[in-house]
């Protein structure tokens, strides 16, 4: 027990004495939250749209006015009026415009004749997200032009979609928070956990430990416990800062806090022991550095933190079933946004417990006590 405490104390001292590491571990997930939250928010802005009006009739002007209204309001597009169709198309090809709308001569005329008026919309289909948005926008602008001369009763069907929000307002920015906390845990388990082991081995410090009566279990669990302590702290700071930034309310009481604490501790243990299994025998810290980016992608993206697991192809869904980060994200989302109690996240907790135990046993068994 004294031995274990000695190792833990040493690791915490060493961690605290490297303030850059502390700061990086805290700042990186938060920067990630801010960047991801602002660069990929679901809302698109300022997509350049070239319009060539070869008709110049009332209806073409009406169509352009409709689009101008969007430009002024939601700012989805920024409109560039051109005279030359070729210039517009070249612009799309060169990436100057995301799309070119060509209103042909006779557009107004065919509208007057109550024919279906046609326009040409040239899309940069290498950028699917922008293309889909512009297409939808132009269609709806076109529809409202049509509505003016189609008698109301002729409308075949009309759908009303009403958003029914099941839970209190959760915006995209906030939904990133669980993922960012899990990422903070991941980074913590790397820097405060297995990295220390491999670094000590690389520097030869471990040789002097192996010469003492420390057991395998002392060495592995010492590192796991100190890693747990440091990582839990980091995760909590990241969680609280993220909640402040995105405006998630804190008000949900003791049970919620307890659930969050438990999820963070269990996720940390699961990832720490997993990293020991994967990287515990590496001989160079560079291997840990390189693998960390790779492992982060492997476990983070299929965790449901960014994109719903249900939309994954079958093989990736299968992987998500054994990915501890997926359970962690599910549990954190439930507790943070749905006010779920322990009963809802029980399955996640049990999975994380079993996972940790299995990995710890493998980690200790595979750890080499000799050189």
């Amino acid at each position: 027990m004294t031995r274990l405490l000695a190792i833990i104390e040493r690791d915490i001292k060493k961690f605290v004495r490297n303030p850059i590491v502390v700061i990086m571990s805290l700042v990186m997930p938060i920067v990630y939250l801010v960047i991801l939250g602002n660069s990929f928010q679901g809302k698109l802005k300022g997509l350049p749209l070239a319009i060539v009006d070869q008709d110049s009739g009332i209806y073409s002007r009406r169509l352009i006015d409709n689009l101008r209204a969007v430009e002024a309001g939601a700012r989805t597009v920024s409109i560039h009026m051109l005279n030359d169709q070729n210039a517009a198309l070249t612009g799309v090809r060169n990436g100057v415009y995301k799309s070119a709308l060509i209103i042909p001569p006779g557009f107004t005329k065919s509208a007057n004749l109550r024919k279906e008026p046609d326009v040409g919309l040239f899309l940069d289909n290498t950028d699917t997200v922008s293309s889909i948005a512009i297409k939808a926008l132009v269609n709806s602008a076109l529809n409202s032009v049509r509505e003016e001369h189609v008698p109301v009763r002729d409308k075949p069907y009309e759908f009303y979609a009403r958003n029914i929000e099941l839970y209190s307002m959760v915006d995209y920015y906030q939904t990133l928070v669980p993922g960012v906390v899990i990422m903070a845990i991941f980074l913590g388990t790397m820097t405060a956990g297995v990295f220390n082991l491999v670094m000590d081995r690389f520097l030869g410090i471990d040789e002097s430990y192996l010469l003492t009566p420390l057991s395998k279990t002392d060495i592995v669990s010492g590192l796991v416990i100190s890693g747990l302590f440091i990582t839990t702290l980091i995760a909590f700071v990241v969680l609280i800062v993220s909640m402040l930034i995105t405006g998630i309310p804190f008000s949900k009481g003791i049970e919620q806090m307890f659930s969050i604490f438990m999820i963070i501790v269990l996720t940390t243990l699961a990832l720490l022991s997993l990293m020991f299994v994967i990287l515990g025998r590496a001989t160079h810290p560079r291997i840990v550095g390189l693998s960390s980016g790779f492992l982060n992608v492997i476990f983070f993206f299929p965790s449901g933190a960014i994109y719903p697991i249900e939309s994954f192809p079958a093989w990736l869904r299968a992987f998500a079933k054994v990915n501890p980060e997926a359970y962690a994200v599910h549990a954190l989302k439930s507790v943070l946004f749905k006010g779920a109690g322990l009963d809802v996240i029980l399955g996640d907790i049990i999975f994380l417990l079993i996972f940790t135990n299995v990995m710890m046993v493998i980690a200790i068994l595979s750890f080499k006590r000799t050189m």
Partner: protein
Amino acid sequence: MAGINNIIEVSGLVKKFGSLAAVDGVTFDVPEGEFFGFLGPNGAGKTTLIRMLTTLLKPTGGRAVVAGIDVSASPQEVRKKIGVVPQALTSDLDLTGYENMDLYGRFYSIPSRERREKIKNLFEIIGLSNRQNDLVATYSGGMRRRLEIARVLVHAPTVLFLDEPTIGLDPQSRRAVWEFLEKFRKEYSLTIFLSTHYMEEAESLCDRLAIIDNGKIIVLDSPDRLKSELPGNDIIHLTLSDLSMISPVEDKIKGLAFVHNVVAEGEDLRVFVENGAVNFTPLLESVKEAGGIVNSVGIHQLSMEDVFIHHTGKSIREEGGKKVNFFVGAGLPQKLSR
């Protein structure tokens, strides 16, 4: 060796890395209280041997008993009895000198009061009391080494293993290490096992010495006996001007009555002679007769280095039998060690 208490007993110890036998059937005993040395060139197998004796490596064959305990059977028990200073520096740079020592004491479950007193005493002996609360990152190499030697004495081991403890140190720091090794030895009545490739270190510290090369013990005795057992009493050292002269000269002078042994290394010849002062001139004449042109010549009394050369046929500081000669001109060759 019945009756005498052996602290280390090794018989037929082997360690193979693939097909390479790094330690190739080594047998020796070290009685209680002895300062025992292993002298060998780079790659001789010193570190491998120490790692087996200190539980870091599993032997491929043979048996080693340390402090009465079989190393393979109960490594954990052995670890409690030994103190080991590995060849590489192993103190933690992010901790202070005191913390490094304290950590060790805690690994051996020494009560905190006792620990504090021991550490204080040890810092006094190594002369670093005023630096004990500085980070090890700020220590010099010699200071780190002293700290690391003192560190493994916190738990009062029965036997101390030191793997080339003064490698990379300047002569002054080296002497400081020697001095307090002697001090520790008395104060803690230690048995010490030391490996080195410094002749002077082996000679001045060790009660008995084993010369090891290519994983095998070549001779084992006290430094004085090793020297007195050598044939002759002086060495005449010749450097010839051309490599092609070596073998005719060697053949010629081997036939001289006062020459006991000739060891050639590149353009150098080490001639083990009786009464060098008297036989100096006749030797040079024979060399001339054999067509040798002498670039430099020197004469000295037998040293440990000559013991090593006599037994292994090469000097200790070269690696893999290849020879690079840095020395041309007069004076005794002083080969660079690294």
